[in-house]
Protein backbone atom coordinates (compact mmCIF):
# COMPACT_ATOMS: atom_id res chain seq x y z
CA UNK A 1 0.00 0.00 0.00
CA UNK A 2 2.82 2.39 0.97
CA UNK A 3 4.72 1.38 -2.14
CA UNK A 4 1.79 2.20 -4.42
CA UNK A 5 1.40 5.56 -2.62
CA UNK A 6 5.06 6.38 -3.33
CA UNK A 7 4.58 5.49 -7.00
CA UNK A 8 1.52 7.68 -7.14
CA UNK A 9 3.33 10.65 -5.54
CA UNK A 10 6.24 10.32 -7.97
CA UNK A 11 3.85 10.75 -10.88
CA UNK A 12 2.45 14.07 -9.51
CA UNK A 13 4.18 17.30 -10.66
CA UNK A 14 6.36 18.95 -7.98
CA UNK A 15 4.18 22.06 -7.65
CA UNK A 16 1.13 19.87 -7.08
CA UNK A 17 3.05 17.85 -4.52
CA UNK A 18 4.06 21.02 -2.69
CA UNK A 19 0.43 22.22 -2.79
CA UNK A 20 -0.78 18.88 -1.45
CA UNK A 21 1.78 18.95 1.36
CA UNK A 22 0.73 22.52 2.30
CA UNK A 23 -2.90 21.50 2.27
CA UNK A 24 -2.06 18.48 4.40
CA UNK A 25 -0.20 20.68 6.90
CA UNK A 26 -3.06 23.18 6.98
CA UNK A 27 -5.56 20.37 7.49
CA UNK A 28 -3.41 18.80 10.21
CA UNK A 29 -3.38 22.13 12.06
CA UNK A 30 -7.05 22.92 11.52
CA UNK A 31 -8.52 19.45 12.15
CA UNK A 32 -8.25 19.30 15.96
CA UNK A 33 -9.40 22.93 16.26
CA UNK A 34 -12.42 22.34 14.03
CA UNK A 35 -13.26 19.11 15.86
CA UNK A 36 -13.14 20.71 19.26
CA UNK A 37 -14.78 24.04 18.37
CA UNK A 38 -17.45 22.88 15.97
CA UNK A 39 -17.97 19.41 17.33
CA UNK A 40 -17.00 17.82 14.03
CA UNK A 41 -15.39 14.45 13.82
CA UNK A 42 -12.84 15.02 11.01
CA UNK A 43 -10.24 12.27 10.68
CA UNK A 44 -6.64 13.12 11.46
CA UNK A 45 -3.92 13.23 8.76
CA UNK A 46 -2.58 9.97 10.10
CA UNK A 47 -5.98 8.37 9.58
CA UNK A 48 -6.21 9.75 6.03
CA UNK A 49 -2.78 8.52 5.08
CA UNK A 50 -3.71 5.09 6.39
CA UNK A 51 -1.30 5.18 9.33
CA UNK A 52 -4.11 4.44 11.72
CA UNK A 53 -3.13 1.16 13.28
CA UNK A 54 -1.44 2.70 16.29
CA UNK A 55 -2.48 6.35 16.56
CA UNK A 56 -5.83 5.81 14.95
CA UNK A 57 -6.76 3.39 17.68
CA UNK A 58 -5.76 5.91 20.26
CA UNK A 59 -7.69 8.58 18.37
CA UNK A 60 -10.73 6.38 18.33
CA UNK A 61 -10.38 5.89 22.01
CA UNK A 62 -10.03 9.61 22.58
CA UNK A 63 -13.18 10.16 20.54
CA UNK A 64 -14.87 7.57 22.69
CA UNK A 65 -13.60 9.39 25.72
CA UNK A 66 -14.94 12.66 24.39
CA UNK A 67 -18.21 10.98 23.65
CA UNK A 68 -18.42 9.51 27.08
CA UNK A 69 -17.48 12.86 28.59
CA UNK A 70 -20.05 14.68 26.54
CA UNK A 71 -22.61 12.06 27.39
CA UNK A 72 -21.74 12.60 31.05
CA UNK A 73 -22.07 16.31 30.56
CA UNK A 74 -25.35 15.98 28.77
CA UNK A 75 -26.67 13.78 31.55
CA UNK A 76 -25.10 15.84 34.28
CA UNK A 77 -28.46 16.87 35.67
CA UNK A 78 -29.69 13.39 36.46
CA UNK A 79 -26.29 12.45 37.83
CA UNK A 80 -26.19 15.65 39.86
CA UNK A 81 -29.61 15.07 41.25
CA UNK A 82 -28.68 11.55 42.21
CA UNK A 83 -25.65 12.79 44.06
CA UNK A 84 -27.79 15.45 45.65
CA UNK A 85 -30.27 12.79 46.65
CA UNK A 86 -27.44 10.80 48.12
CA UNK A 87 -26.27 13.84 50.02
CA UNK A 88 -29.72 14.62 51.31
CA UNK A 89 -30.26 10.98 52.19
CA UNK A 90 -27.05 11.04 54.20
CA UNK A 91 -27.98 14.26 55.90
CA UNK A 92 -31.41 12.86 56.63
CA UNK A 93 -30.05 9.71 58.16
CA UNK A 94 -27.69 11.85 60.23
CA UNK A 95 -30.53 14.03 61.40
CA UNK A 96 -32.71 11.04 62.08
CA UNK A 97 -30.04 9.61 64.30
CA UNK A 98 -29.77 12.95 66.10
CA UNK A 99 -33.51 12.99 66.55
CA UNK A 100 -33.72 9.47 67.80
CA UNK A 101 -30.99 10.28 70.30
CA UNK A 102 -33.02 13.15 71.61
CA UNK A 103 -36.41 11.53 71.41
CA UNK A 104 -36.35 9.52 74.60
CA UNK A 105 -39.36 10.07 76.79
CA UNK A 106 -37.24 11.17 79.70
CA UNK A 107 -33.60 12.08 79.79
CA UNK A 108 -30.91 10.39 81.77
CA UNK A 109 -28.36 12.67 83.35
CA UNK A 110 -25.47 11.47 81.23
CA UNK A 111 -27.52 11.30 78.07
CA UNK A 112 -28.97 14.65 78.83
CA UNK A 113 -25.59 16.26 79.23
CA UNK A 114 -24.39 14.99 75.89
CA UNK A 115 -27.58 16.05 74.19
CA UNK A 116 -27.24 19.43 75.85
CA UNK A 117 -23.86 19.84 74.20
CA UNK A 118 -25.51 19.07 70.90
CA UNK A 119 -28.20 21.63 71.51
CA UNK A 120 -25.59 24.15 72.56
CA UNK A 121 -23.73 23.63 69.33
CA UNK A 122 -26.92 23.97 67.39
CA UNK A 123 -27.79 27.08 69.36
CA UNK A 124 -24.54 28.70 68.36
CA UNK A 125 -25.36 27.99 64.75
CA UNK A 126 -28.83 29.35 65.27
CA UNK A 127 -27.60 32.50 66.93
CA UNK A 128 -25.17 33.17 64.14
CA UNK A 129 -27.69 32.54 61.43
CA UNK A 130 -30.59 34.33 63.02
CA UNK A 131 -28.76 37.51 63.89
CA UNK A 132 -30.24 39.23 60.86
CA UNK A 133 -33.78 38.26 61.74
CA UNK A 134 -34.32 39.47 65.26
CA UNK A 135 -38.12 39.13 65.29
CA UNK A 136 -38.72 35.99 63.25
CA UNK A 137 -38.85 32.37 64.26
CA UNK A 138 -35.58 30.49 64.72
CA UNK A 139 -33.80 29.99 61.45
CA UNK A 140 -30.81 27.75 60.87
CA UNK A 141 -31.56 24.87 63.18
CA UNK A 142 -35.19 25.23 62.31
CA UNK A 143 -34.55 25.28 58.60
CA UNK A 144 -32.34 22.22 58.86
CA UNK A 145 -35.06 20.46 60.75
CA UNK A 146 -37.74 21.50 58.33
CA UNK A 147 -35.75 20.27 55.35
CA UNK A 148 -35.31 16.90 57.02
CA UNK A 149 -38.96 16.23 57.68
CA UNK A 150 -40.90 17.75 54.82
CA UNK A 151 -41.53 21.20 56.16
CA UNK A 152 -41.95 20.26 59.81
CA UNK A 153 -40.03 22.60 62.04
CA UNK A 154 -37.72 20.64 64.33
CA UNK A 155 -39.23 17.62 62.60
CA UNK A 156 -42.38 18.09 64.72
CA UNK A 157 -44.07 21.45 64.30
CA UNK A 158 -46.51 21.95 61.48
CA UNK A 159 -46.48 25.39 59.85
CA UNK A 160 -50.07 26.63 59.88
CA UNK A 161 -49.30 30.07 58.45
CA UNK A 162 -49.02 33.47 60.09
CA UNK A 163 -45.68 32.44 61.58
CA UNK A 164 -47.48 29.92 63.77
CA UNK A 165 -46.45 26.33 64.31
CA UNK A 166 -48.51 23.57 65.87
CA UNK A 167 -47.04 20.66 67.81
CA UNK A 168 -48.33 17.07 67.58
CA UNK A 169 -50.08 17.70 70.91
CA UNK A 170 -51.80 20.82 69.56
CA UNK A 171 -49.73 23.49 71.29
CA UNK A 172 -49.27 26.64 69.21
CA UNK A 173 -45.96 28.44 68.94
CA UNK A 174 -46.46 31.86 67.38
CA UNK A 175 -45.24 35.45 67.34
CA UNK A 176 -44.70 37.16 70.66
CA UNK A 177 -42.27 37.80 73.50
CA UNK A 178 -39.30 40.09 73.62
CA UNK A 179 -37.49 37.77 71.22
CA UNK A 180 -40.24 38.17 68.61
CA UNK A 181 -41.28 34.53 68.53
CA UNK A 182 -42.17 32.00 71.23
CA UNK A 183 -39.77 29.46 69.76
CA UNK A 184 -36.95 31.93 70.05
CA UNK A 185 -37.92 32.64 73.61
CA UNK A 186 -37.98 28.92 74.32
CA UNK A 187 -34.50 28.56 72.87
CA UNK A 188 -33.23 30.83 75.64
CA UNK A 189 -33.93 27.92 77.95
CA UNK A 190 -31.53 25.61 76.13
CA UNK A 191 -28.59 27.49 77.60
CA UNK A 192 -27.77 28.85 81.00
CA UNK A 193 -27.68 32.58 81.67
CA UNK A 194 -25.37 32.52 84.68
CA UNK A 195 -25.46 36.28 85.15
CA UNK A 196 -29.21 36.47 85.24
CA UNK A 197 -30.44 37.31 88.73
CA UNK A 198 -32.87 34.73 90.05
CA UNK A 199 -33.40 31.25 88.58
CA UNK A 200 -33.13 30.32 84.93
CA UNK A 201 -34.38 26.86 84.02
CA UNK A 202 -32.21 25.14 81.41
CA UNK A 203 -33.53 22.19 79.43
CA UNK A 204 -31.42 19.18 78.57
CA UNK A 205 -31.82 18.08 74.97
CA UNK A 206 -32.73 19.98 71.84
CA UNK A 207 -35.83 21.84 70.71
CA UNK A 208 -37.49 18.69 69.38
CA UNK A 209 -37.09 17.04 72.77
CA UNK A 210 -38.36 20.13 74.58
CA UNK A 211 -41.42 20.32 72.32
CA UNK A 212 -42.25 16.69 73.13
CA UNK A 213 -41.86 17.33 76.84
CA UNK A 214 -44.14 20.36 76.62
CA UNK A 215 -46.81 18.32 74.82
CA UNK A 216 -46.49 15.73 77.57
CA UNK A 217 -46.72 18.40 80.27
CA UNK A 218 -49.82 19.93 78.68
CA UNK A 219 -51.53 16.58 78.23
CA UNK A 220 -50.88 15.30 81.74
CA UNK A 221 -51.56 18.56 83.56
CA UNK A 222 -54.75 19.18 81.57
CA UNK A 223 -55.91 15.70 82.54
CA UNK A 224 -54.98 16.46 86.16
CA UNK A 225 -52.65 13.48 86.26
CA UNK A 226 -50.94 12.59 89.52
CA UNK A 227 -48.37 15.14 90.64
CA UNK A 228 -49.45 17.80 88.14
CA UNK A 229 -50.94 21.19 88.92
CA UNK A 230 -52.95 23.82 87.12
CA UNK A 231 -53.38 27.51 87.93
CA UNK A 232 -55.62 29.83 85.92
CA UNK A 233 -55.50 33.63 86.05
CA UNK A 234 -57.50 35.59 83.50
CA UNK A 235 -56.62 34.00 80.14
CA UNK A 236 -53.32 32.62 81.32
CA UNK A 237 -52.86 29.08 82.54
CA UNK A 238 -49.82 27.76 84.41
CA UNK A 239 -49.38 24.00 84.09
CA UNK A 240 -46.84 21.94 85.96
CA UNK A 241 -45.87 18.30 85.52
CA UNK A 242 -43.23 16.14 87.21
CA UNK A 243 -40.82 13.86 85.38
CA UNK A 244 -39.18 10.73 86.71
CA UNK A 245 -35.71 11.80 85.63
CA UNK A 246 -34.00 15.19 85.30
CA UNK A 247 -35.11 17.10 82.23
CA UNK A 248 -32.87 20.06 82.93
CA UNK A 249 -31.23 22.02 85.67
CA UNK A 250 -31.61 25.29 87.51
CA UNK A 251 -29.29 27.94 86.15
CA UNK A 252 -29.01 31.68 86.61
CA UNK A 253 -27.51 33.18 89.75
CA UNK A 254 -29.98 31.34 91.98
CA UNK A 255 -29.08 28.01 90.37
CA UNK A 256 -25.40 28.77 90.57
CA UNK A 257 -25.64 29.48 94.30
CA UNK A 258 -27.34 26.11 94.79
CA UNK A 259 -24.85 24.20 92.63
CA UNK A 260 -27.12 24.03 89.57
CA UNK A 261 -29.47 21.35 90.91
CA UNK A 262 -31.32 19.02 88.55
CA UNK A 263 -34.79 20.03 87.45
CA UNK A 264 -37.44 17.30 87.36
CA UNK A 265 -40.51 19.42 86.67
CA UNK A 266 -41.70 21.60 83.83
CA UNK A 267 -43.77 24.73 84.21
CA UNK A 268 -45.68 25.66 81.09
CA UNK A 269 -47.53 28.98 80.69
CA UNK A 270 -50.19 29.01 77.98
CA UNK A 271 -53.04 31.14 76.76
CA UNK A 272 -55.53 28.65 75.40
CA UNK A 273 -53.16 26.46 73.41
CA UNK A 274 -50.74 29.29 72.65
CA UNK A 275 -47.43 28.74 74.40
CA UNK A 276 -46.22 31.82 76.30
CA UNK A 277 -43.19 30.27 77.99
CA UNK A 278 -41.93 27.06 79.54
CA UNK A 279 -38.94 26.03 81.58
CA UNK A 280 -37.67 23.24 83.84
CA UNK A 281 -37.44 23.84 87.58
Amino acid sequence: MQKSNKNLLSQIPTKWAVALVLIAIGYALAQPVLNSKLGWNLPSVANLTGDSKGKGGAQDKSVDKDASTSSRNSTSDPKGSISKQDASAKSESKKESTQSDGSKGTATSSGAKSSKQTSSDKQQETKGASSNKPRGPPTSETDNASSSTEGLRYGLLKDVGGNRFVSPGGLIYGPGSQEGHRLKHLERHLDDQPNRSGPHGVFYGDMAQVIRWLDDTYERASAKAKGTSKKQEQDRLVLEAPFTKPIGYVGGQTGKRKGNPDAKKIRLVVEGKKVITAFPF
Partner: protein
Amino acid sequence: MNDPANAQPTLGTCPFCEQGEVRVRKCSDQCAGVHFFALCDECEAIWLKPDLQAERIFPDAENATCPICNADLFGSQARWATKQELHGTSWSEATSG
Protein backbone atom coordinates in the same frame (compact mmCIF):
# COMPACT_ATOMS: atom_id res chain seq x y z
CA MET B 1 -24.52 46.73 83.53
CA ASN B 2 -21.52 47.45 85.75
CA ASP B 3 -22.42 51.13 85.81
CA PRO B 4 -24.92 51.44 88.71
CA ALA B 5 -26.71 54.30 86.98
CA ASN B 6 -27.38 52.11 83.95
CA ALA B 7 -28.39 49.07 85.98
CA GLN B 8 -31.89 47.82 85.34
CA PRO B 9 -33.55 47.60 88.75
CA THR B 10 -35.79 44.66 89.51
CA LEU B 11 -38.92 44.29 91.60
CA GLY B 12 -38.12 40.62 92.16
CA THR B 13 -39.13 37.24 90.80
CA CYS B 14 -42.53 37.08 89.12
CA PRO B 15 -45.14 35.72 91.54
CA PHE B 16 -47.16 34.31 88.64
CA CYS B 17 -44.64 32.21 86.70
CA GLU B 18 -42.12 32.10 89.57
CA GLN B 19 -39.21 32.31 87.15
CA GLY B 20 -39.19 35.63 85.34
CA GLU B 21 -37.55 38.77 86.56
CA VAL B 22 -39.94 41.70 86.95
CA ARG B 23 -38.32 44.94 85.83
CA VAL B 24 -39.60 48.38 85.01
CA ARG B 25 -40.42 49.17 81.44
CA LYS B 26 -40.04 52.74 80.25
CA CYS B 27 -42.30 53.68 77.34
CA SER B 28 -42.80 57.02 75.68
CA ASP B 29 -45.61 58.31 73.53
CA GLN B 30 -46.56 61.72 72.19
CA CYS B 31 -49.90 61.66 73.99
CA ALA B 32 -49.04 59.82 77.20
CA GLY B 33 -45.47 61.10 77.48
CA VAL B 34 -42.94 59.00 79.38
CA HIS B 35 -44.59 56.31 81.47
CA PHE B 36 -43.53 53.29 83.49
CA PHE B 37 -44.96 49.88 84.30
CA ALA B 38 -43.54 46.59 85.52
CA LEU B 39 -43.14 43.64 83.20
CA CYS B 40 -42.11 40.03 83.75
CA ASP B 41 -39.47 39.11 81.17
CA GLU B 42 -40.65 35.49 81.17
CA CYS B 43 -44.46 35.43 81.11
CA GLU B 44 -45.13 39.11 80.33
CA ALA B 45 -47.32 39.70 83.36
CA ILE B 46 -47.76 43.48 83.81
CA TRP B 47 -48.16 45.63 86.91
CA LEU B 48 -49.20 49.24 86.66
CA LYS B 49 -48.11 49.93 90.25
CA PRO B 50 -44.71 49.23 91.81
CA ASP B 51 -46.20 46.41 93.90
CA LEU B 52 -46.06 42.76 92.88
CA GLN B 53 -48.98 42.00 95.19
CA ALA B 54 -51.17 44.40 93.24
CA GLU B 55 -53.43 43.25 90.44
CA ARG B 56 -51.59 42.14 87.32
CA ILE B 57 -52.73 42.08 83.74
CA PHE B 58 -51.61 40.09 80.73
CA PRO B 59 -51.09 41.47 77.26
CA ASP B 60 -52.29 39.74 74.10
CA ALA B 61 -50.13 36.67 73.45
CA GLU B 62 -49.31 37.61 69.86
CA ASN B 63 -49.75 41.38 69.79
CA ALA B 64 -48.54 42.57 73.14
CA THR B 65 -49.05 46.31 73.63
CA CYS B 66 -48.20 48.86 76.28
CA PRO B 67 -51.05 48.96 78.84
CA ILE B 68 -50.89 52.75 78.88
CA CYS B 69 -50.34 53.96 75.30
CA ASN B 70 -51.14 50.75 73.35
CA ALA B 71 -47.90 50.95 71.37
CA ASP B 72 -45.93 47.75 70.69
CA LEU B 73 -44.81 46.40 74.06
CA PHE B 74 -41.40 45.61 72.59
CA GLY B 75 -41.27 48.44 70.07
CA SER B 76 -38.43 50.90 69.73
CA GLN B 77 -40.27 53.44 71.88
CA ALA B 78 -39.97 51.17 74.91
CA ARG B 79 -37.07 49.68 76.85
CA TRP B 80 -36.04 48.55 80.31
CA ALA B 81 -35.72 51.55 82.61
CA THR B 82 -32.41 52.28 84.31
CA LYS B 83 -31.90 53.19 87.93
CA GLN B 84 -31.14 56.73 86.89
CA GLU B 85 -34.36 57.01 84.91
CA LEU B 86 -36.39 55.78 87.86
CA HIS B 87 -34.76 58.16 90.33
CA GLY B 88 -37.37 60.30 92.01
CA THR B 89 -40.32 58.17 90.84
CA SER B 90 -42.52 55.84 92.88
CA TRP B 91 -40.79 52.92 91.15
CA SER B 92 -37.41 53.81 92.59
CA GLU B 93 -38.20 52.72 96.15
CA ALA B 94 -39.82 49.44 95.08
CA THR B 95 -36.89 48.26 93.03
CA SER B 96 -33.48 46.96 93.87
CA GLY B 97 -30.31 46.42 91.94
